[in-house]
């Protein structure tokens, strides 16, 4: 895996890309949000301090999903009525990009799907059924959430958000789907719930006393 090195255009700190396909990263020193252009890094924004967070996952946490090793490169933090959750961006050892979500220590792994013809935000209602990749999914809840911040490397530009909407769909045997309405074009993620112990996570955050 290539690890291009550059410097932060804001503070001059060293920026190392763990994953060659990263589009965006956050300078770990000055918290500038940096976007890769053809020639250099451009500062597009600034991350305010992230709220105190309880996720046991952190940047560079490593794990195994379906016999493939992965490493955590970045995250998007969201908040909604009942708390916050993290979408950790992970890269598998074969270069695949995926998401490890952590909502109050309930973990799930999902992959972006390039399915077209997704329902528009106004069309989705609880109870509706959709079928993707030969799996049936039922809309269980539509969650209005707030974008709260980003950290590390991401596979796309994601920083100028406020309110976003997600539709959660349940399939069978732990399968789920998420319709992400944070951009003009809806995005679909298909995944499944996973056991913390099954992920064999290493380099976890440590909690005093535990």
């Amino acid at each position: 895996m290539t690890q291009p090195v550059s410097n932060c255009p804001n503070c001059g700190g060293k920026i190392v890309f763990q994953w060659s396909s990263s589009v965006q990263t956050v300078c770990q020193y000055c918290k500038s949000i940096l976007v890769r252009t053809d020639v250099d890094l451009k500062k597009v924004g600034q991350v305010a301090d992230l709220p105190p967070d309880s996720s046991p996952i952190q940047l560079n946490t490593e794990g195994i999903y379906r016999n493939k090793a992965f490493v955590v490169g970045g995250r998007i933090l969201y908040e909604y009525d009942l708390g916050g959750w993290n979408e950790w961006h992970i890269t598998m050892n074969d270069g695949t990009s995926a998401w490890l979500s952590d909502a109050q220590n309930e973990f799930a792994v999902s992959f972006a799907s390039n399915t077209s013809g997704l329902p528009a935000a106004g069309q989705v209602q609880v109870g509706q059924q959709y079928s993707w990749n030969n799996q049936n999914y039922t809309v269980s809840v539509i969650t209005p959430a707030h974008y709260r911040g980003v950290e590390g490397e991401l596979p796309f530009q994601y920083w100028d958000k406020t309110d976003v909407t997600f539709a959660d769909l349940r399939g069978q045997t732990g399968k789920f789907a998420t319709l992400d309405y944070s951009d003009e074009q809806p995005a679909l993620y298909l995944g499944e719930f996973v056991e913390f112990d099954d992920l064999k996570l290493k380099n976890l955050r440590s909690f005093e006393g535990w």
Partner: protein
Amino acid sequence: MSAGTPPLSNPPKPQAKALNCPHCGAAITLRALGHAETVVCESCNSILDAKDPNLQILQTFQVITGEDRPLIPLGTRGKLRGTDYEVIGFQRRSITVEGIRYSWHEYVLFNPYKAIRYLTEYNGHWNDISVCRELPIVQFAAASYLGEVYKHFQSSDATTNFVLGEFPWQVRVGEHAAVTEYVKPPRVLSAEKTDNEVTWSLGEYTYGSDIWKSFNLPGSAPEAVGVYENQPSPVSENVKGIWSTFLAFAILLLVFMAAFDLISNKGTVFESSYRLNTGEPKGEASFVTDVFNLEGRTSNVEVTTSANVSNSWIYLNYALINQDSGQAWDFGREVSYYYGSDSDGSWTEGSTKDSVVIPSVPAGHYYLRIEPEVDAAHAPISYSVEVKRDVPVLGFFGIAFLALLIPAIAITWRSISFERARWSESDHPPIQIGNTE
């Protein structure tokens, strides 16, 4: 942090965040880091917003002093399913059925790496509970989850009466939830419906003694009272086993019976008929039969007496005598048969036939000495005596059969009683037999 200068040393972080109650000033301990939504002040019973740095007061409630101390104190750590958990919250909830309030306790368990778990306790019955990831499918009076079918047990309206410590949701005293429970012992599947969401959870029955061991609690767990909705029956698992054992042994017995029947001679070795005339003096009628031969291994001898008694009796003093050794087996048999009718209809008593089996008679030459006794005013009685060698004794098999059947029935009965006790507390009580409570 600035570039290139790593911090010299990290100051020790406090294990739990120390704060003060904005209502009474008492110290508030936050154990669940960012997981707590609300925290309750133990001193003044204010429910505080755990996400707010100023711990904004959300609700205060009144409690009766000395009530509702958690059996597992907040902050206690224990190991459940291989994971360490700390008790961070405690609440009492209740339902009211037919004017009677039933209360139970719930404990919130925290581990920074794992999802929140819960323990519930009612009358010494414990459940280890986790939130379901998949939605169970409800059909009629059942719910299926992960391939198991759970039977509907009870639907009720649960009210939160008392809270203590931290909760990963917005807890309030007086809050209602519609609770529907489905059971498949030792598990219980519950749906809790509030205004805006339905949460499904799965509980597994846990013995108080195991909780005491897990959390290293002093003393012993309170005795469990009655039968709980998802308590595993101490006998139901044995019921199938005992009946298959019974079946296996019954077949074995039948095989043995057939084998004994085959190897038995059942041969009649002596048969003769006699007549006792009216007025014949008793006591002088003693006589001996012809000699007959008993062959083969040491085995039993069956002596059958048939008499044409009719509302009368005959008593026979027998002696089976070995001609060679003089060894004798004395026994007395009565043949009597009575019949008639009274206000209850016709009746009969006794039989015109009697059989007795004498065990362990060696081979040899034998004869019978017979001494009949009858009523002085008897009518003439004809009787016959038949001697059979080596008859199969099936009574033993009957006893063995009963010895197997009785425990099977007893265990089945206990299992049925246990299930009746379980379901009598549900929305689907079993039909009462005999009384109407």
